[in-house]
């Protein structure tokens, strides 16, 4: 059972998927020779050739648009968008074509395309490298949206995403790329947790904290800190944003009576708001406090030297936990 950084786990997952299915292609900027700016595709062009690992012209509309065409011919393209803020040239293809062709064709057209997008902040970078645009994609019917928080999930979820007959937007938490974790590579796709299930990653009785991607580790850190004060947080790793596994969260909230949702994206119009609404609808009589959200502000992502203030940290999570308990 190898101990892999999250980036290497995705690499291993891509390799396994490519070995299993010759129709799997990788497309993106600098992904071949260089192996991607985060080295997620390192070595794959060398081993699978330039016809399967394509260094593309610098055009995201081109990447996604041609991936759609390739998918129509039976390929399973996995597109790398170099950074979150660079996906927008492709937005038209994603929203009007990729997401809607199945419905437009009454299910006759299948688009098994995966878009890999590094997201989230905390790496001290310049503009457009640290944003969390997942809500924009979750709002589009026809797309599935997932994000792994650990190496094991990264390894398996990328393979599940590739196997999915629907287009999947696969958000990779940038600042966790180097976090190591055990990966059980001997299991099969059928054995591991389904792609669209959330997971309780820490048990606790007082407050449920739901997080995904980069904020899962943060929620666990907050849980450690809270435990020192005798507060037990239950941490749910959502793993999937569209569809949202509301059931797993609801089950937890029925026990704790309290929910705090943590993400880096702005809370305004965000995934936390969606979850809050659905939990309120389902668990109104179990709730002891309003569902609280901790996230980014309704602002352009700020310069790196203030990002720690923009991003939710342990303190802001605990502050929300306190407010939830005080309600």
């Amino acid at each position, binding site marked *: 059972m190898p101990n892999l950084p999250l980036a290497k786990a995705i690499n291993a997952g891509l390799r396994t998927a490519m070995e299993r299915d010759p129709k799997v292609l990788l497309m993106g900027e*600098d992904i071949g020779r260089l192996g991607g700016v985060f080295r997620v595709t390192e070595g794959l062009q060398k081993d699978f050739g330039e016809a399967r690992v394509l260094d593309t012209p610098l055009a995201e509309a081109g990447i996604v648009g041609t991936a759609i065409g390739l998918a129509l011919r039976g390929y399973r393209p996995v597109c790398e968008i170099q950074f979150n803020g*660079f996906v927008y040239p492709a937005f038209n293809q994603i929203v009007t074509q990729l997401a809607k062709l199945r419905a437009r064709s009454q299910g006759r057209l299948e688009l098994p395309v995966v878009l890999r997008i590094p997201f989230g902040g905390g790496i001290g970078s310049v503009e457009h490298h640290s944003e969390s645009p997942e809500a924009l994609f979750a709002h589009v019917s026809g797309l599935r949206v997932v994000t792994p928080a650990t190496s094991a999930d990264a390894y398996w979820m990328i393979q599940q995403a590739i196997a999915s007959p629907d287009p999947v937007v696969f958000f990779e938490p940038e600042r966790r790329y180097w976090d190591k974790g055990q990966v059980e590579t001997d299991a099969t796709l059928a054995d591991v947790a389904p792609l669209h299930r959330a997971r309780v990653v820490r048990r606790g009785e007082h407050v449920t904290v739901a997080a995904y991607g980069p904020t899962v580790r943060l929620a666990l850190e907050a849980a450690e800190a809270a435990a020192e*004060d005798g507060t037990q947080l239950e941490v749910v790793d959502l793993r999937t944003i569209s569809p949202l596994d509301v059931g797993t969260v609801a089950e937890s909230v029925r026990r704790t009576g309290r929910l705090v949702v943590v993400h880096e994206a702005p809370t305004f119009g965000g995934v936390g708001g969606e979850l809050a609404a659905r939990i309120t609808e389902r668990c109104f009589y179990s709730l002891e406090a309003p569902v609280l959200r901790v996230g980014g502000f309704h602002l352009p992502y700020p310069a790196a*030297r203030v*990002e720690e*203030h923009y991003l939710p940290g342990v303190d802001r999570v605990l*502050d929300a936990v306190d407010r939830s308990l005080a309600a």
Partner: protein
Amino acid sequence: MPGGDPEGMVQLLTPAGERVEHPDYDVALEPEELLGLYRDLVLVRRVDTEANALQRQGELGLWAGLLGQEAAQVGSGRALRPQDHAFPTYREHGVAWCRGVDPLGILEIFRGTSHGGWDPVAHRLHPYTLVIAAQLLPAVGCAMGVQRDGAVGTGDPGRDTAVIGYLGDGATSQGEASEALQWAAVFNAPVVIFCQNNQWAISEPVSVQARVPLHRRADGVGVPGVLVDGNDVLACLAVTRAALDRARSGGGPTFVEAYTYRMGAHTTSDDPTRYRSAAEVDVWRAKDPIDRFRRYLESEGLLDEDFTTALEAEAEQLAEHLRAGVRELPEPAPLAMFDHAYAEPHEQVEEEREEFAAYLASFDAAPSGGDPHQQPATVAGRTR
């Protein structure tokens, strides 16, 4: 192809520093103007050297270098008049220099204290655009505005205005780059699209982007394309001047491909040894834009010791200004990020600002006090 000179490239100075004639392009410069260009080249290279060092010392998070591209940037930048507008990428430090921007303003971006430390209105230098090619349609739109203001073709050199939009070879692949050329052509906009073909887009050679020389891409939409030696400051000045003059006089857009080389890494995060050979870099080193210009000035007897000593001292002073200044760049106040998202108050933003201010203040009131992020402690200390 890397290394060999492409056909039809406008050159006024050979790599050996020999002045050659071109049938269509020429510049006649006074000695002071020539020395001024040399000063620009030397100083912008010094900015680059210093910024790289500051990045290594941890004072900057990142740096996107201009080494090797000084002539393309200074030549085109010095062709601009005060009333012109420039729309840069993230690498146009030499153009920013020509627009009178203190390089510290650029360092703010790479230190992470702001997204841009100059006044784009005062300097007529748009903020750096990191999304490749995204600055070009705005540049064309700005030129359409110039046109509608009647600031084209009046014959008044203080009034006639042009716009220049920069991009890299890789960025030519973006759909928006093609749209910008197309719009410029259709509206006969007073704009120059200036492409620095530095042969690489991170790890991708220009052959990944195009199967024809880049300057020929403009022909298809009716914009004349000119290929210029990007390591020849005189040729870059001459070609850009002609293109800007054409734009200002109402003649319409021009696409310029400046054929140059990125001598350094894409940014300090990049390792070019993974994708290109040292031999290729050596070929280009022999065409260094500053060496060639210096040889020319020497052969003309224009570089005396007084000048070079004074320039060295000035470069040293500039370096010191950057070293000292970067450490003194004010850290952005946490609440300042709320200031400029909107011109007029936005209810949710204001609410978030107030909540965050109260949250920050709650730490000041706590027994331990201080910045919450400096200590691992939880908020428990203040609330329970």
